[in-house]
């Protein structure tokens, strides 16, 4: 057994709370974060059947405001932000001129001339620099890194609506998926969005950092009888993988395009212009050479990030994510494979510690909740 050594890291406003709750802490994207409290399997099952509360305050926020804010967002992101109404959210990509990912982001339309991008923790500085460099000078839009103004709590699972509703006067039943509203939660002014990274119904609550502990405790107390538990990044990763949601740095990065990641639905194909549009259009027309697929292991083995995939004995691609999932109880994962070998039912091999194990391409998502 070899175990990693501790290092010095950034902390969210809830760091002391996690330690009090007995969380096991790990480094993630430069942050000291809870990976698990009672155990990944326990927390994963709690989110699928009841609800779990996650501290995702490490996520970043970058706001873009000004008379040309929409044009600026349209230029730097792949999805069509013109389709957003105030109060609405979309999944999108910050793209390079090559159509690859600077990051994957959620775009919130806060007001007519004011957008907020929620970005990955490890990319905050990179994204902010990228955005300021790629908003043309003549454009009336300014970008501000507002990450330190928000703690972010995610309450996820079938019980989340009733639990959160007991703490707020905001109408959560009327809040549609990928919309947000503002209101008080436990008497703290918050932004509440119906979003998440687990495949379950749920909410993400943007809280002033000084009040994060108060809101966190209020949710856990209100949710106690419903079986709400604190959940860590370990369960967050297994939940998102079961729901086939991509993880930046694993499933896509600056070397993979939006089309290759099979995320054509976050491209505004009819948009006038955005970075990388020409590359993505020609890849869509001609078909990409490789594609991100879902797979299941046929042999008893777990494929993990970075393992090589083989077809007919030749190296054909790479596993980007993989684990044994607690709810489906299967070894699943995602991998880039040649497009002509990306059809469900295609068998391939994964090299695991010098041995080849059989896998088969399956349709995604692996898990879809019953509505």
């Amino acid at each position, binding site marked *: *057994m070899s175990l990693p050594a501790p290092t010095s890291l950034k902390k969210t406003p809830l760091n002391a709370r996690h330690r009090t709750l007995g969380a096991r802490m790990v480094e993630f994207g430069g942050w000291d974060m809870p990976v698990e409290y009672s*155990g*990944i*399997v326990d927390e994963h099952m709690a989110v699928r059947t009841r609800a779990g509360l996650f501290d995702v305050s490490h996520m970043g926020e970058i706001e873009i405001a000004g008379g040309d804010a929409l044009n600026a967002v349209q230029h730097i992101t792949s999805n069509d932000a013109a389709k957003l109404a105030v109060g609405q959210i979309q999944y999108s990509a910050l793209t390079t001129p090559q159509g690859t990912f600077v990051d994957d982001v959620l775009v919130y339309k806060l007001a007519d001339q004011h957008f907020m991008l929620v970005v990955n923790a490890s990319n905050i500085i990179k994204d902010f620099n990228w955005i300021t460099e790629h908003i043309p000078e003549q454009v009336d839009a300014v970008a501000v890194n507002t990450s330190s103004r928000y703690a972010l709590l995610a309450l996820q699972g079938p019980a989340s609506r009733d639990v959160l509703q007991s703490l707020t006067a905001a109408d959560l039943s009327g809040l549609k998926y990928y919309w947000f509203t503002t209101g008080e939660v436990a008497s703290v002014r918050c932004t509440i969005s119906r979003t998440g990274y687990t495949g379950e119904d749920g909410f993400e609550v943007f809280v002033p950092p000084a009040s994060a502990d108060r809101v966190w405790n209020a949710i856990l107390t209100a949710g106690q009888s419903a079986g709400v538990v604190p959940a860590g990044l*370990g369960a967050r*990763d*297994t939940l998102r993988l079961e729901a086939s949601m991509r993880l930046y740095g694993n499933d896509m990065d600056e070397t993979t395009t939006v089309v290759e990641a099979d995320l054509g639905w976050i491209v505004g194909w009819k948009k006038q212009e955005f970075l990388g549009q020409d590359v993505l259009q020609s890849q869509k027309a001609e078909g990409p050479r490789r594609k991100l697929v879902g797979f299941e292991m046929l042999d*008893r083995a*777990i494929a993990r990030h970075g393992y090589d995939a083989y077809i007919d004995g030749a190296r054909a691609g790479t596993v980007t994510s993989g684990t*044994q999932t607690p709810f489906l109880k299967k070894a699943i994962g995602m991998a880039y494979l040649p497009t002509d070998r990306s059809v469900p039912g295609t068998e391939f091999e994964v090299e695991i510690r010098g041995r080849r194990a059989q896998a088969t391409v399956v349709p995604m998502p692996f898990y879809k909740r019953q509505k």
Partner: protein
Amino acid sequence: MYPADLKYTKDHEWVRIAGAEAQVGITDYAQKQLGDVVYLELPEVGRQIRKGEVFGTIESVKAVSELYAPVSGEVTQVNASLTQKPEAVNKDPHGSWMIALKVSDPGETSDLFDAAKYTELTK
């Protein structure tokens, strides 16, 4: 907490020596660090393993770790029921033996920790 009849390694394996036979597993500290164990890969019976050599792999939901032999010897038994139910390692780490070895050099155990020393090490 740590049974007195076991010896321990700095890599968090335990070994239970009875005459010429040794059973090997991982400690409570190790299972806590790993989290939910979901997969165990163990050697074939008959394999000769040297002290400090990797004899298998243990995987939790989150991580892959190698297992190091606390003593040298020939593998005489592999706990097949544990590979079928690897989560037992979390529930009863010191009762979940993985392999049994026929110890080839009894003198090798002198540098292993006793329970009190190992408890100190994991504080």
